[in-house]
């Protein structure tokens, strides 16, 4: 990874996953057959679209030549990255349309589904063979769990009271899944090849990784188990933890090129 180029990507992935998480949570909240769209649905969806738009702009600053960005969709035949850009633009369009044309059930579920697929495509972009530790479904799993955690957490700010318990359960589930996932992954890597083991060791030795585990996952889980509702300051903690986790994901995942000349 080239550190100087990665910061914009950290923010792009986090913010886009936040936006997708919010749409997923909105869909889950209003999933019930008799549930009417929430009062502030329109403004919510404008906010979701705004977050996604901002994340796309930030991703432009990662490019060496932003003005050539339109070329990024030319290689749909083989490049997941081209699909990622296409599907995120489509997602933004759907979010904006939903917000603009009215938050109908059909639109909500279509956007949520597109968001889910977007997470999968994004996961595939980040699992090249040059990073053995994440040359699998883990990036998608990381992104999905992060999206749900951030989505559920931040939804608590504006979701109606009657849906708070549902949010709380979803957040408990997501946090426990996240805790399990982020703790187990490095340990599994320790038993893999040299480069995979180096990645595991790098994660476990990184303070940011432990900040993500403790502040981003464990403490929030404990808090909402004890206080039976999601305190308003909790989403800040979740966002900060996710940020630390994502920086570790970019900087401490070891590339095979680093160990050429050594056993792989």
């Amino acid at each position: 990874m080239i550190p100087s180029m990665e910061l914009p990507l950290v923010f792009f992935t986090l913010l886009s996953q936040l936006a997708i998480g919010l749409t997923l949570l909105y869909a889950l909240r209003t999933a019930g057959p008799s549930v009417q769209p929430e009062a502030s649905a329109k403004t919510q969806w404008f906010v979701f679209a705004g977050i996604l738009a901002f994340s796309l702009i930030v991703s432009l600053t990662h490019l060496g030549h932003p003005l050539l960005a339109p070329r990024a969709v030319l290689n749909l035949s083989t490049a997941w990255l081209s699909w990622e850009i296409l599907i995120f633009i489509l997602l933004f369009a759907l979010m904006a349309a939903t917000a603009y044309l009215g938050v109908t059930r059909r639109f909500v579920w279509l956007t949520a589904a597109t968001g889910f697929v977007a997470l999968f495509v994004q996961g595939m972009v980040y699992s090249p063979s040059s990073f053995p530790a994440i040359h699998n479904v883990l990036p998608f799993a990381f992104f999905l769990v992060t999206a749900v955690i951030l989505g559920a957490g931040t939804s608590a700010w504006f979701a109606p009271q009657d849906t708070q318990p549902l949010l709380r359960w979803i957040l408990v589930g997501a946090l426990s899944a996240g805790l399990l996932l982020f703790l187990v992954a490095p340990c599994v890597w320790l038993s893999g090849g040299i480069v995979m083991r180096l990645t595991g060791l790098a994660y476990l030795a990184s303070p940011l990784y432990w900040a993500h585990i403790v502040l981003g996952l464990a403490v929030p889980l404990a808090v909402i188990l004890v206080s039976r509702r999601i305190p308003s300051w909790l989403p800040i903690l979740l966002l900060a933890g996710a940020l630390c986790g994502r920086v570790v994901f970019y900087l401490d995942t070891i590339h095979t090129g680093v160990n050429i000349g050594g056993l792989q």
Partner: protein
Amino acid sequence: MKKQLGFYVDAKRCIGCFACAMACKNQYHQASGVVWRQVYPLKEEIYPHHERAFYSLSCNHCEHPVCMEVCPASAYTKREQDGVVMHHQERCIGCGNCVRSCPYGAPRFNPVTERAEKCSLCWQRLDAGIDPACVKSCPTNALRLINLATFNEPNAVQFPPGYPHMSRLNPSTRFRQPELPKIIKPEDQQ
């Protein structure tokens, strides 16, 4: 089999003198810090002496290049006539996806032009009928240009230890393993 050019890295003859790596700089004057051909010392778990055996590696001109696969702007092409994988500067948007995705670290990011760039097997020299700069400069003939269609060196290896094993890409580089001498040391220094 179709003509596919590649490098034969003879680690038995290679003395790690870096002449090939500097010959590439001598030919293309890359920005400081940007290295297209690097000479990697083998770690002691593979060759038991510190920095005494090497692999000289640049782009492997794979059969299924991952750089060509993942580049969103289709800035890479693979030449029909000899399988050279080329990068086209003007199409590159500087996203670094190829630099990230190539397991051999062949594409490098040029901070001055903010684009990726890599070894292009000196295709201009090939078209003019002369050897690539690195191959011509090797003093022990340890780095040779081969055509996989007609290459049949018996003790050649595609994935030696210390070289990422990526059979899906099918890199065109072939290797010969380094060898060890008989060593006679004073008793107290075994």
